[in-house]
Every structure is written in structure tokens, then in C-alpha cells.
């Protein structure tokens, strides 16, 4: 059994290493069109993971996660333009700082309440930001704001790759492999019991929330520089949050790889629809239907099909039976 576990772990590492090598050489293997799609897939896999930090591990649904993506995007856009003219890399930590402050301001009071209030508060916050960015002059209003163009697809591919890999590494280290993760999951499952174990649930929730917000902000910064032009709808829009929610639910709430699977899968579907039918409202209906179907029929997501314990693990159980049968 132990030998088997070690072999599985080695296979896992080998697979990951192979994946990374493929991802690292990919820009030289495909044309710019597909490179843009790969860049987008990396971004969505990372964003879904950032949403999952709070939604999946701590059990608090954030319906305004696009706010933090947008804060990162607008921070970079404003700071790279006059009168600041900062270099791109310097705007990323600035965006993270702004985002962290906002997350503390919203999360502090509302994370103490039941999840419904938190869902409403985050949703309202994102909408306030859309309205705010729309009516203000310094954000360019509805028209939006441009960034100094930098047309190097490979740069953006690697920027997204580094950000995504870091996001997953941090999630793995903090939520799967540390005391912090135990505390977060404990409070998700039973808050009074977690308190009775000495866990400061209000603080731990806030930490998870800030972490998730800051991660989203990094992708926002890179996205803004990449597309060189942003407006309130394109970075604060509710559709962005909708997509993250569907990706995580589809992939598997609270699992490490679920958001990556769901994120890449849904983004590819999105692009296929876009290629065939253009920008269509039909996609919104598909998103909605996907959420409904996943909640009703696949509550543990795609990752739940493979989970050895927890979840329904239907495939895992079937596989286990096969293996055991073979041993006998």
C-alpha cells in the first residue's frame, strides 16, 4: 500500500514536470492565434483557482470576484499612464496592495456573518466599482482607458504562465499542505467547532479572502497590459465572476486541480462558440445552464469523479474495484 502510494506520487510529479516542459516550449510550437488562446486558458485557470481559495476551501461564495480582477487592471492602467508612468512590473504590487486594502475593508465586517450576506456584499462591491468606473472621469468613464501597447505575445504567455503556476503553488502549499489549510477547511465545515479548537475563524477567513483577492488582481494587471485597452464592463463585468464560478463548480469545488480542469475546459468551449457564432448572448445561457446542471447532477465537479475519498468518487471506486479484483 505504502509502496503503491509512493509510486503514485512519483507518477504525479513526473506528469507535472512533463506538463511544465510542454507549457514552457509551447510558444515555439504554435502560431500566435493559438498562443493567445493558450494565454487566455492560463489566465482563466489561475482566476478560477483564486476564486476557489475562498469559495472552495473556506466555503464562502464571492459573487464579486471580478472587482479584484478589475482593481488590478485599473491600477496597472492608471499607474502606467501619465502622470505616473510606472514600469509594468512595478504596477503589479501596487495593484495587489490596493486590492488587499479593499478586501480587508469588505471582508472584515461581512465575513463574520452568514455566507448570504457576504455574497451580497461582494456582489454589491463589484457593481459599485462598475458604476464608479463608469461615471468617473479619471477612469475614462464608459469609454475606458488605454495602456502603452506592448505587442509581444510570448511575454504575455509567460507572464500568465508564471502567475498561474505561482497561484497553484501557493494554493497547494497553503491550503493542501499546511496548518493554514487545515484551519480554513475546519471553519468551512463547522465554525463553532473550529473556534473551540482555538482557531480564530474571523482572522483565518479574512486571510483566505485577501489571498484570493490579491491573486485575482495580478491576473487583472497582466490582462490589462495584454489587451492594452480596458473599460468597466471588460474588467469588472459580472460575466467574469460568472465564468469563474462555473469553472470552479464544473471542475470541483475545493479541489486543487478542479479549477484548472474547469477553467481550461470552459475557456476552450467559449472560444469554440466565439469562433463559430461570434460574441453571442447564447453563451451566457450556456453558462447558466452549466451551473444549474452541475449543482443538480455533479455537485463535486469533474474532480469529484476521480476523488479517492470524499466526493462521490464514482470513477475512483470503480477503478479501485478493478484493481482489487485483479489482485485476487
Amino acid at each position: 500500500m505504502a509502496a503503491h502510494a509512493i509510486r503514485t506520487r512519483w507518477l504525479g510529479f513526473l506528469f507535472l514536470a512533463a506538463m511544465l516542459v510542454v507549457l514552457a516550449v509551447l510558444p515555439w510550437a504554435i502560431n500566435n492565434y493559438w498562443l493567445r488562446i493558450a494565454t487566455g486558458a492560463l489566465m482563466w485557470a489561475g482566476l478560477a483557482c483564486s476564486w476557489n481559495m475562498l469559495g472552495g476551501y473556506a466555503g464562502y461564495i464571492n459573487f464579486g470576484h471580478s472587482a479584484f480582477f478589475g482593481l488590478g487592471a485599473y491600477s496597472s492602467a492608471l499607474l502606467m499612464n501619465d502622470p505616473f508612468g510606472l514600469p509594468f512590473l512595478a504596477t503589479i504590487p501596487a495593484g495587489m496592495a490596493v486590492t488587499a486594502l479593499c478586501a480587508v475593508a469588505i471582508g472584515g465586517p461581512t465575513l463574520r456573518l452568514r455566507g448570504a450576506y457576504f455574497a451580497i456584499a461582494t456582489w454589491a462591491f463589484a457593481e459599485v466599482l462598475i458604476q464608479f468606473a463608469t461615471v468617473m472621469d479619471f477612469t475614462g468613464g464608459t469609454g475606458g482607458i488605454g495602456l502603452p501597447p506592448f505587442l509581444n505575445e510570448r511575454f504575455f504567455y509567460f507572464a500568465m504562465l508564471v502567475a498561474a503556476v505561482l497561484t497553484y503553488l501557493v494554493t497547494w502549499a497553503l491550503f493542501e499542505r499546511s496548518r493554514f489549510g487545515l484551519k480554513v477547511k475546519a471553519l468551512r465545515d463547522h465554525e463553532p467547532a473550529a473556534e473551540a479548537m482555538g482557531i480564530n475563524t474571523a482572522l483565518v477567513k479574512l486571510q483566505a479572502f485577501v489571498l484570493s483577492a490579491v491573486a485575482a488582481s495580478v491576473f487583472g494587471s497582466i490582462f490589462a497590459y495584454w489587451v492594452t485597452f480596458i473599460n468597466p464592463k471588460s474588467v469588472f463585468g459580472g460575466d467574469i465572476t460568472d465564468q469563474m464560478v462555473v469553472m470552479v463548480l464544473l471542475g470541483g469545488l475545493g479541489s486543487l486541480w478542479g479549477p484548472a480542469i474547469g477553467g481550461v475546459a470552459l475557456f476552450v468551449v467559449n472560444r469554440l462558440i466565439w469562433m463559430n457564432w461570434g460574441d453571442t448572448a447564447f453563451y451566457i445561457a450556456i453558462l447558466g445552464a452549466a451551473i444549474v446542471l452541475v449543482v443538480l447532477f455533479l455537485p463535486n465537479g469533474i474532480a469529484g469523479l476521480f476523488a479517492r475519498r470524499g466526493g462521490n468518487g464514482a470513477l475512483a471506486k470503480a477503478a479501485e474495484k478493478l484493481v482489487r479484483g485483479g489482485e485476487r
Partner: protein
Amino acid sequence: MDLFLQTLLNGLLIGGVIATFTIAFQLTFGVLHVIDFAVGGWVVLGGYLGYYMASGLGLDGFLAIPVAFVLFGAIGYLLGPVLYNVRNSRTARPELMALALTFGLFTLLRGGMLTAWGFNTRSVATALSGESLTLGPVTVPLIRVAAALFAAAIACSLFLFLYRTRYGLAIRATAENRNNAALMGVNIRRLSANVYGLYAGITAMAGVLMGAIYSVNPEVGLRYTLFAFFVAVLAGLGSVGGAVVAALLLGVIEAYVSTYVGSSYSLLAIFATLFLVLLISPRGILRRGL
């Protein structure tokens, strides 16, 4: 001064219409323990029903009110048990899943309506459209007065039903304490179906009225979901008594911001108020029991 009074009256009239579906929204939360993101979707669907009955069949828009109640009441009655099952399932995190379900439903309705009807704005034609009523120094559109009267009638019937019938008592008992109600022999599952049906029906009726006063397009659903949340937060989730006051207040705030600051700021003002209330007094400032 006249403008001030007129704005106040306008706001109260709209607030009255908002009150009808937010009361039902609160009731649904009390019984099902789910906040329904799809609330705005039901409003918009009601508006479209009114539009198609008025423009397609040439009937008066107000005739759509009973039809909306029956049609969406039936749809809600069918959806209620689904929501109840998810909310009370044995899977991990049912509260979160139920929230996600209504969010998905809302997105589905919005996307479906956009696909079917596009972004065009429609309004419900009634015999009263374009008429206005002068009361001393103030003049208000007659349609708003009529809508507010309809709304008041709906709200009064709902309150009579809740406080004067045995079934209303069962609903209130369930909203107060689900376990005790179950012990007293209330079939919570069936009650949930009925309450969700009642709520969807009332919300669609309010949608017809809103469609007659303003107009509808698939994107305004968000606005009505916001209204419901605003009232829920100000009144405290599940509180029906505070909902009426909060809805009237919402109507008045919206009217004044639109008149004196500009209508593009009204949503910002409402969201900002909602957000501030959540930060300052998160359990609601008008909290009152059923």
C-alpha cells in the same frame, strides 16, 4: 418645493411596487433559507409577458397580472422542490450549492432572454399609459398610481393570507423555526413548493407593473435583484415587517437621486447605500420579526 413633493410621491409609488415582490422574497428566504438571485429574472419575465399580451394579443397590459400569477406561480411551484432538495441535500455545503443554483438560474434566464429577445427595450401598453393625475401642486403619471394601488392590493392580500389563515400561520411558523414547525406536523417540503410558487407569481405580477411604468429588457433583471437585496439587507434577511419600510425608502432614494443628481447615478447610490449598511450594521437596520 413642488418638484420635491412630486419626487417624494413618485418614489413612494415605485417603492410600493417594489414592496410587493420584496415581501415575497423575504418570505422565501424565511422558509427556504435561500436568497434567490433569480428574483430579477422573474420580474423581467413578468414584464415580457405583459408586453406580449399587450402588443401581440392587443389586450390591456393589466390583464397580464392574473395570467402572470398563474403561469409563474406554476413554474415556481415546480422549481420550489428542486431548490428545497439542493438546500437540504446531504452533499457537502448545501447552502453554497443552493446559492449557486439560483445564481445559475438567473444567468440562464438572462442569457435565454437575451438570445430570444435581444437587447431591445419593451414596455407594457395599458389604457392608462400617457395619462397623468394632478393632485394639488403635484402631477404624477396615472399608471404609477394604478400600479401602486394594484401593488397595495397584492400586498394586503398577502398579509391577510399570512395573518388570517391557518396556512399563513404554518408559513410564519416555518419561517420562525423550521424544526419546530416540522415537529408540529408541517410538511416543509410541500410548503416550500407553495411558498416558492407564491413568490414567483407575485414577483412576475410586480414585473408586469414595472414593465408598464418603465420598460423591460433582459439586462434590467440585475436592477431588480439589487432592489430585493437592498431591501433584504436593510430589513434584515427574512424580516417581512421591515421589508415594506425598506422598499418605500428605496423608492424614495432612487427618485431623489434620479431627479436631483442624475439617473445614471441612481444605481451607484443604491449599491453604495447597500454596501455601507452592510459594513455598518450588517444584520439590518430595520430588523423586525414576521
